[in-house]
């Protein structure tokens, strides 16, 4: 609202993800690969292994072309992209952490210089000095990772920073060390995975065998360590945040599964290279890299997803509104926007008045300023798809928009704005996905009623209040569901027609008996 919103047709979030995932896949290689270069050089020189040295020289060129060129540009690319898509978050991070980034820049400068001198120094420098450049490179690269890790983890687990705004309290936040260890293990594995690529085109078969085995020494132990490090990492993520990846939030859950599967596949493929190391082809090494990219991308997706509804935990929502009113927020917290209204608070909208005639147009603008940081209409996280499943009419839509922050384990920020503005958004969304009258009215089986009206907040599992607390007696339950707000004050006042309620109660009782849900049920307790 404070900044204009860039409409990216296929999804702003997807653009950030694309730039960021490609970047991390290269930047982690830049760290691990740096250590790989110096350690391998030492080994080759100690054994007077000229063949290995020759390959390493070529590999250095590959390393520089990938990391210094693409790694550096895509790193700047993240700056460009987050500034375009999340200017409020970027501005906050810049002002809170500019000295961190300035320090990282110093390391980066040293890193780039050392990388280029290491590359050009292969034929020029004596061994000892050449290795010295390699070590300078690796130490600077690792140091820059230490810095950026502090800022990324801060965004997920902001720790006591939200209260104190102290640099180091946010920097050394709860997930700092687990994340650093996790990422370093990834970096080491990637060093080996990228080495497989240049090893695969090696003509000298004996050397190729040694190279593949040497690469495996980097990949296999590091990947084997990842589950333990991942467990350590997850332990320091607040349980309610991590819970998003355990079912309630589809994106986080799916990607967590992908990450585990693809990690296992990477591990298996890496072991497979050892079966016939001399025969490993370029295509196979690229396949290993591609699967690893998938695994790493999935991990980053999970991290980004579980952070929702925040972009900076407990401080700033993904849609650039502050989680609570704080001095200097410019009136851009949810509570303030509720009072002033979007049409007055937002700087970058063209409609300033709301009337019966322009509700859809106003709603479209509200969608842009409040929802488009994560959603599109029909593409990435497209709302059309969700709405087709729900079949909400305008009134129900407006009611449901009032409880966004309860849906899907609280991954969305609450709607901010006046009731009339919420109504305008509901009108607009109804035009996006008109209700199929038959589907809505004929929703007479309990499962459909549940899917359309309850499933965004309630889960089909034991202990869920819906199964635990709702009266077992069909008549009492049907009656209770007629007045949801007195069941629980924060429930939306849906006013389901009686036939639907009866069907729903019947379905709930079937679930109870079929799956053993609601064993703890002691009848309704008003909750």
């Amino acid at each position, binding site marked *: 609202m404070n900044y204009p919103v860039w409409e990216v047709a296929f999804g702003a979030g997807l653009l950030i993800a694309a730039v960021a995932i490609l970047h991390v896949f290269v930047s982690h290689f830049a760290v691990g690969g740096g250590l790989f270069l110096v350690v391998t050089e030492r080994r080759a020189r100690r054994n007077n292994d000229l063949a290995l040295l020759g390959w390493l020289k070529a590999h250095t060129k590959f390393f520089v072309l990938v990391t210094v060129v693409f790694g550096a540009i895509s790193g700047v690319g993240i700056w460009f992209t987050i500034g375009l898509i999340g200017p409020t978050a970027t501005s906050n991070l810049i002002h*809170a952490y500019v*000295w*961190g980034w300035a320090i990282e820049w110093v390391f980066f400068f040293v890193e780039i210089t050392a990388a280029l001198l290491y590359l050009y120094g292969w034929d020029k420098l004596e061994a000892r000095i050449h290795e010295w450049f390699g070590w300078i490179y690796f130490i600077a690269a690792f140091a820059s990772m230490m810095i950026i890790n502090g800022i990324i983890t801060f965004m997920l687990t902001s720790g006591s920073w939200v209260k104190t705004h102290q640099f180091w309290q946010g920097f050394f936040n709860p997930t700092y060390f687990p994340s650093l260890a996790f990422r370093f293990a990834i970096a080491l594995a990637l060093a080996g995975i990228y080495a497989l690529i240049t090893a695969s085109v090696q003509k000298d078969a004996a050397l190729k065998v040694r190279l593949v085995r040497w690469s495996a020494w980097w990949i296999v132990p590091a990947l084997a360590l990842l589950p333990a490090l991942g467990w350590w990492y997850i332990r320091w993520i607040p349980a309610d945040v991590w819970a998003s990846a355990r079912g309630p939030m589809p994106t986080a859950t799916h990607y967590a599964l992908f990450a585990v599967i693809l990690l296992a596949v990477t591990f298996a493929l890496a072991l497979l290279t050892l079966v016939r190391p001399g025969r490993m082809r370029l295509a196979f090494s690229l396949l290993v890299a591609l699967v690893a990219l998938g695994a790493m991308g999935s991990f980053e997706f999970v991290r980004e997803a579980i952070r929702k509804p925040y972009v900076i935990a407990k401080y700033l929502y993904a849609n650039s509104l502050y989680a609570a009113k704080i001095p200097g927020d410019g009136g851009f917290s949810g509570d303030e926007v509720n009072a002033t209204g979007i049409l007055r608070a937002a700087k970058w909208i063209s409609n300033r008045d709301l009337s019966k005639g322009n509700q859809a147009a106003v709603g479209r603008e509200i969608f842009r300023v409040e929802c488009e940081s994560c959603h599109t209409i029909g593409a990435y996280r497209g709302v059309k798809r969700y709405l087709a499943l729900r079949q909400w009419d305008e009134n129900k839509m407006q009611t449901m928009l009032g409880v966004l922050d309860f849906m899907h384990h609280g991954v969305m920020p609450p709607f901010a704005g006046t009731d009339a503005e919420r109504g305008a958004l509901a009108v607009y969304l109804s035009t996006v996905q008109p209700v199929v009258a038959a589907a809505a009215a004929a929703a007479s089986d309990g499962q459909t009623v549940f899917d359309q009206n309850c499933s965004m907040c309630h889960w089909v599992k034991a202990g869920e209040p819906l199964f635990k607390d709702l009266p077992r007696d069909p008549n009492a339950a049907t009656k209770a569901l007629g007045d949801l707000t007195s069941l629980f004050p924060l429930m939306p006042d849906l006013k389901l027609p009686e036939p639907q309620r009866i069907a729903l109660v019947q379905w709930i009782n079937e679930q109870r008996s079929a799956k053993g849900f609601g064993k703890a049920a002691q009848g309704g307790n008003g909750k």
Partner: protein
Amino acid sequence: MTPPNMIPTLDPNPLPAPYWVFKLLLIATFFLHIVAMNFVLGGGVLALVSKWRSRNRESANRMFLDVARKLPVLLPATITLGIAPLLFVQVLYGQFFYTSSIVMAWPWFLVLVFLTIAYYGFYYVSYRGGRPSARDGGVMLFSVILVFLIGFLFSNNLTLSQTPSRWAGKYFASLDGWNLNLTEATLIPRFLHFFVAAVAVGGLLLVFLALANWKRDHEYARQVLQFGGKAFMYATMAQFVVGIIFLVSLPRDLRMLFMGDSLLATILLLIGVTGGIGAIFLMSDALRKESVRVAGFYVPGILAVVIASMSLMRDILRDAYLKPYFHPGQFAVETQWSVFPLFLVLFLGGVILWFVMLKRYGLLGSK
């Protein structure tokens, strides 16, 4: 919808050091960035001119390759030195810079695409191994055009960031960010001002190349010196025309800052003008006497002062543009004493280490 209301408000975090610290860092790192950028763009242009002006003459092709081999180092230097001013401009001018970037989001994003392609193009040419080929020239031309376009996009964004009154019209005309700032009267003169300067500084890159080869291959070095020195002179002469057009294209009250209204701005302009004239005469003399020393040390020395004063003028101009919307006093300041000194120490250490690296590599004087 008056423009000042459209200016995004600052975020709640105070500046973590006094305003002037960031200003100093912004201008100083911008200076370094622009010099490196000039070497890339100007050097690339002159390498192409040299290749095509004298087809297949051996020394011309050699000059082309000598410059081409420097570009894969000079481009990362430009990027690395560009990150710092990108960081500091966000610290002080984020409200303007983010907004204008969003208004022209896709073209701005394209900078990254162009940069990646140009970079790999430079590497391609430098790794070709030196056999003269038309394809090298073609790839180089393509990369140089991309770098040229990147500069043009930067000029678009930075002029747009200074003229908030344009934002709303453009933004609402294209919410998906397909905008440029082509209606801005100063855009082309400003961009040409930077481009011509890049060619001049590219000439100095050749002078340095001559300096490096002076003892090893005197005949070749002489040719390089003449070519680079002349390029520098002609481009700097052209700059007097382009510079005046740029000055004239500025809104009157801003132009007058440099013509008496502001003492500092006027002095800086005078330094720039006299420095430019002085550098031309000095270079002309150096070429006649074939004094690589004058061309390679004194002229760049004068030019460094000129570029520094131009960098300051650029900053004065930006603040003058933004005067209705921006005041340094708007920032709350809370210096982060727990980390700011650490930056200074590491920065100093980094600079020392950088020189030690260059020395150990043998790039600084005798080893």
